[in-house]
């Protein structure tokens, strides 16, 4: 059997249902709002779109696809760095009261990586033992500004974003991003990444690497408009950026290895925790309790899953779709929900033994919250105090 035959034999198993016909497709698509993806049985299409290629006439900064370790330059900021509360002020709407906490869990970084005509500065990080927010300033190496008419500040992204500990991808994790222009007077835009449910105990070093590939802008794509290929790639390359993550443990573990009964069904909670930045819930299967993430996800969506604060405010932990935007100095959109569920078998590095399947739900809050202000987490009818 030649290679193509081998490959085709392996991949011939990928087939859609014979029942998929043009009539069915047309009816499904026309019944949705024209061109818009629909939310179907809890499916969630997050923000972010990938549009490739080059439009004629658009200047593209090109570089070889090589790891930054073999090229590019790294520089360190000269002079004073901005306080981290100031860096993240717009992202987390940090109040005066929260500044002290933010300074405790964050740090300015100030390293710059330059490659393929693009300069990416890691301005600062906010992290705890389970969540990480990183803010970058991105500008052209030649100092020319991005044209906001051609490249809206809130539509920048990268084709691929990965978090690595050494050379290992730290998956799964929840993540989201946004871009905006903090100061239209300068040539840089800001790009913010949020990662959730990445546990400090999983990595030995006090740093991780964020790999950003192919910088692009999604102008020309709006929700509901069918994407046209061939638009948006601005700079081709791979930027691998070292980020300090040694975190103070400000998280509060609410539950650990406990069985909850939810409407007559038992669920093994491996861990439920909150921190000033976000929350994390891991549900595991055991020998006795079988897990169906589909069922549990569906259940969670229909029931209360929220954080109650001491002042009575409730923050939904399973909400989706709402965006936060602001106008001063630029616009940003951020999904309220960073929600992931994935059943996975995570093996321990160097150990062939596989752990039992788990489902993880995690996300970052829209603002920093003092654990002392958190009263309880509600899951369905259960109220679990945040001690």
């Amino acid at each position, binding site marked *: 059997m030649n290679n193509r035959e*081998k490959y085709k034999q392996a991949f011939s198993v990928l087939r859609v249902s014979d029942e998929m016909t043009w009539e069915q497709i047309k009816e499904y698509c026309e019944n949705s709002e024209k061109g818009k993806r629909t939310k179907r*049985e809890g499916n969630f299409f997050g923000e972010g779109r990938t549009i490739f290629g080059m439009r004629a006439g658009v200047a593209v900064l090109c570089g070889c696809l090589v790891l930054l370790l073999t090229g590019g330059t790294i520089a360190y900021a000269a002079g004073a760095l901005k306080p981290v509360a100031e860096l993240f002020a717009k992202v987390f709407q940090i109040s005066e009261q929260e500044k002290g906490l933010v300074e405790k869990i964050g740090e300015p970084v100030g390293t710059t990586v330059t490659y393929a005509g693009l300069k990416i500065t890691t301005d600062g990080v906010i992290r705890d033992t389970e969540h990480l927010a990183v803010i970058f300033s991105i500008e052209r190496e030649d100092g020319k500004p991005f044209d906001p008419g051609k490249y809206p500040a809130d539509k920048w992204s990268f084709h691929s974003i990965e978090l690595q500990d050494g050379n290992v991808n730290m998956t799964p994790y929840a993540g989201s991003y946004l871009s905006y222009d903090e100061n239209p007077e300068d040539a840089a835009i800001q790009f913010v990444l949020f990662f959730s449910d990445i546990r400090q105990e999983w990595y030995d070093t006090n740093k991780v690497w964020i790999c950003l590939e192919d910088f692009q802008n999604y102008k020309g794509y709006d929700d509901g408009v069918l*994407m046209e290929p061939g638009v948006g*790639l601005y700079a081709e390359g791979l930027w691998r950026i070292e980020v300090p993550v040694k975190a103070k443990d400000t998280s509060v573990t609410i539950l650990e290895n406990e069985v909850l009964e939810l409407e007559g069904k038992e669920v093994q909670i491996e861990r439920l925790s909150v921190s000033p930045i976000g929350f994390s819930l891991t549900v595991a299967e055991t020998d006795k309790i079988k897990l169906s993430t589909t069922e549990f996800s569906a259940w969670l969506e229909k029931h209360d899953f929220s954080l109650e604060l001491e002042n009575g405010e409730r923050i939904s932990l399973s909400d989706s779709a709402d965006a936060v935007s602001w106008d001063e100095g630029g616009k940003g959109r951020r999904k309220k929900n960073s929600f992931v569920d994935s059943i996975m078998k995570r093996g321990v590095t160097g150990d062939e033994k596989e752990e039992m399947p788990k489902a993880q739900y995690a996300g970052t809050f829209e603002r920093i919250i003092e654990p002392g202000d958190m009263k309880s987490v509600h899951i369905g009818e259960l109220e679990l105090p945040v001690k």
Partner: protein
Amino acid sequence: MKMDMDILVKKYKNHLYAAAFQICKNAADAEDVVQETFFAYYMTEKSFESEEHSKAWLLRTAINKAKNVNRAFWRRNRVPFEEYMTELPFETADAEELFEDVMRLPEKYRIVIHLFYYEEYSVREIAKLLEVSEGNVKVRLTRGRKLLKNRLMEDDYE
């Protein structure tokens, strides 16, 4: 020229599904991509020179849409890839192993390998479809094969 939609769907739905699956690694997302791609073809005002031209456009659109879905970072109510694999009717153990090994590759190598071996596109055609350079395609093919530990040995490119 545009092809008849019934014929197009029958003929290419599995091709689009396989390509989208390479990126989404998830059956539900890949199916959505297939449907949206056919609808996009139906709605576009573009005209196509030939059936091959239509197919290339469909594949490129499906790949881009799949990348779009993937960019969301998160999923809900998805059958995980490992679980989905247990449902697939592989003819042989070798076929299953090759499938698993390919699906473990980084996405950018996977899609190039898929277009080369499954769709039988040349390097030049893949470069045009993905809108990258031919050199880029060759590098990705080489690296992809290396990572597959030479399960798929080097072929003539054209």
